[in-house]
């Protein structure tokens, strides 16, 4: 396999095509504009379709419609666009329609900033929209993972019939890195969706209905229980994380996405000075990798540090919920597009030895 030097947003777009994505609808917003730009040229080359919708709301419902026919589909945006797409995302979850959502996030509420930040954690992980559902959420830390996770997101979406959310940021979207792109999938090899897709009749010849409306309370409750059971399966089977130098660690830094790669540099620097520090990086944000924190030997851990490019902290709530008071957790935070610095993480650990 050859390696390419490619921009994050373009790697996301190309990986989607190679995963079998044949429909994209979206509306422009920095810092993700190269995703639709790239796909507007690339999708027609492979017999797919690209639509720049008249709005984010229209775009997500176009994805809803096409994905309901079993065609792998994606939309992307940044935080403010996801606010508008929220209703459609809830309908994707409620209709059990597989789709991939990519958020190249921004730096604050409202219009935010376009610079790198991790302010959309709650939005992605806990409340993409009302109704009490979950998205499967993956957080890449570099361009390679952005490509790999988008590629795999389509398989996860099909496996569970769920929207899968890839949470990136302006750094990952706009930087170029050396990447090995995944192989082109043959559409004939994709898993069959004949059992549920809308444009196929039931075995008894009746038309299919993909409805999110349950007229009876009990039917809705049953549906919600089914969904909850699926989320429990994810929590049991799909947690993912990376551990780095934690075996003898007295200090643990935890982070995800862009801030994790920066935290890792800090861990290397601190290790070079003989300080026993390790890193836990969350890869799935939902299901949250609780097991990584559960299996720590808290008699050895003196302190923990939670690094994120968000103020107020958001990731830290899930970390606290996993650590359950077994260790002090010290926040290390930047926001608004102020990129976390290795020195900042190094200094925070040293101040707390």
């Amino acid at each position, binding site marked *: 396999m050859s390696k390419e030097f490619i921009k994050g947003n373009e790697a996301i777009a190309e990986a989607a095509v190679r995963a079998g994505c044949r429909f994209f609808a979206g509306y422009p917003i920095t810092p993700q504009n190269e995703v639709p730009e790239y796909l507007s040229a690339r999708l027609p080359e492979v017999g797919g379709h690209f639509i720049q919708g008249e709005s984010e709301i229209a775009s997500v419902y176009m994805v809803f419609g096409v994905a309901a026919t079993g065609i792998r589909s994606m939309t992307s945006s940044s935080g403010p666009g996801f606010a508008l797409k929220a209703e459609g995302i809830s309908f994707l979850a409620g209709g059990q329609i597989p789709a991939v959502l990519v958020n190249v996030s921004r730096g604050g509420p409202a219009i935010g900033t376009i*610079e790198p930040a991790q302010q959309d954690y709650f939005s992605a992980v806990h409340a993409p929209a009302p109704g009490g559902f979950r998205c499967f959420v993956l957080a890449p830390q570099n361009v390679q993972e952005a490509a790999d996770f988008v590629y795999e997101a389509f398989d996860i979406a099909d496996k569970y019939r769920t929207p899968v959310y890839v949470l990136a940021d302006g750094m990952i979207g706009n930087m170029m890195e050396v990447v090995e792109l995944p192989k082109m999938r043959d559409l004939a090899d994709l898993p069959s969706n004949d059992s549920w897709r809308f444009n196929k009749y039931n075995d008894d010849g009746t038309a299919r209905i993909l409805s999110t409306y349950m007229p009876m309370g009990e039917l809705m409750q049953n549906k919600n229980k089914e969904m909850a059971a699926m989320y429990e399966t994810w929590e049991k089977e799909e947690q993912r994380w990376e551990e780095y130098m934690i075996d003898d660690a007295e200090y643990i830094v935890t982070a995800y996405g862009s801030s994790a790669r920066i935290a890792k540099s800090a861990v290397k620097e601190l290790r070079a000075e003989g300080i026993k520090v390790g890193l836990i990086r969350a890869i799935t944000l939902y299901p949250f990798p609780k097991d990584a924190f559960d299996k720590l030997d808290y008699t050895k851990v003196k302190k923990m540090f939670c690094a994120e490019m968000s103020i107020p902290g958001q990731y830290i709530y899930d970390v606290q919920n996993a650590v359950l008071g077994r260790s002090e957790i010290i926040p290390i935070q930047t926001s608004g597009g102020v990129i976390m610095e290795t020195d900042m993480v190094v200094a925070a650990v040293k101040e707390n030895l």
Partner: protein
Amino acid sequence: MEKSVLIAGFGGQGVMSIGKMLGYAASDAGKYASFYPSYGAEQRGGTANCTVIISDEEIGSPAVSKLDMLIAMNQPSFDKFAKKVKKGGSIIVNSSLVTSKVEDPDIEAVYVDANDIANDLGSPKVANIVILGAYIGLSGALSEEDGKAIIKKMLGGKADLLEMNYQAFDKGIQAVK
């Protein structure tokens, strides 16, 4: 060994092109590389900058706050970024457009009349290639062969421009020797 360089100038000076060329060259040479541009409301004549990191191992932050090297293509870039260079680091100053001198004795300063050299060669457009040569000559992050290979690759079918670009590249290397 991880080496960072911030390249800054006016939009249109080829700042992003040099950055990308370094990234492509490093990638072709089997190294880790990152290119992180200023992005958003950029325009011709406005300011533009990018950070390139070339490394033998996995890269941490692509947007470091302390630079090993700065390439200042114009005066505002020098004024803004010179203070971000580490002690022991270096600055390549495009002395055709920057009048300031590096005053910190702990920072190596190299002055290259990139625009004048380019004009002498017959095209102001190759000023960035002069600087590319200067960077490769000074940093050692990539070989001269890597640099020339990427110039050839980027020019693609425009073979008639290759000789002038090679000359510009060589002049850049000579300027830092």
